[in-house]
């Protein structure tokens, strides 16, 4: 039997684990109960692994400053942006986005900003949070 492996394993058995216990260490008995506890501040969740500065998360869109130049549509690789002709603004589907940030670079008015938000999961891929400027 490979002895060095066994030694490493025994060492790992006793030392601190590499796991980041996000959001909780084990499955809570009832998630709803846990969620309400978290909301009332009685239970704290372990934070996820730190995200770096300039993280490419969910896009935020500033409707006011958009001038409707359609440049972002030219570089969006997945048609996550749709033009609304009557408004002269764009609509953004987060569930279609590739988070490449090319629209951020090309926008002359800096309407788009990549935020830090990445915890997006749910039962509806067209929920209100996932469609910007619907």
């Amino acid at each position, binding site marked *: 039997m490979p002895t060095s492996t066994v030694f490493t394993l025994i060492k790992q058995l006793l030392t601190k*684990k*590499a*796991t*980041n*216990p*996000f*959001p909780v*260490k*084990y*499955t809570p008995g*009832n*998630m*709803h*109960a846990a*969620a309400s506890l978290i909301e009332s501040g009685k239970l704290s969740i372990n934070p*996820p*692994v730190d995200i770096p500065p300039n993280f490419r998360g969910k896009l935020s869109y500033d409707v006011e400053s958009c001038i409707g130049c359609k440049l972002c549509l030219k570089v969006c*690789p*997945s*048609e996550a942006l749709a033009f609304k002709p009557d408004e002269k603004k764009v609509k953004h*589907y*987060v*569930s*279609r*986005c*590739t*988070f490449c940030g090319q629209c951020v670079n090309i926008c002359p008015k800096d309407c788009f900003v990549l935020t830090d938000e*990445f*915890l*997006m*999961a*749910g*039962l*509806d*891929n067209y929920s209100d949070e*996932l469609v910007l400027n619907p």
Partner: protein
Amino acid sequence: MKLTKTFDKALWVFHVNSGSCNGCDIEIVAALTPRYDVERFGIKLVGSPRHADVLLFTGPVTRKMKDRVLRVIEQTPDPKVVMVVGNCGSTTGVFYDSYAIDGPIDTLLPEGTPIVYVTGCPTRPENLINGVKEAWLFLEKLRGDDK
């Protein structure tokens, strides 16, 4: 389909890559490894759809895979939950206009199958865990435990 409390605490996962780019797939494997370790929630990757409770789909469905995907869905015993990881599985994402793609996975599922969408391209492993949390919340709602 009867759901008990233990169901959400012992989710066995079968992973189907139906034409994804591997990005989400490696993040799924990363979620199993020490940094994220989803086994602490009782989640286990299994080798056969017969053993699975959760079907984890990544990628849009390519034409050649459609038949197999349907077969996997139907081989999985009830009750089951479907998790769609990544944007291309939920809305075809960047592969929106190829005719090699048979659409996102949710169009193939039988009516009433619970689906959890995990948004991201690819998603971080934490978001996957977040997706599992959403699944728990949903399952609790299904059996009326959401007080």
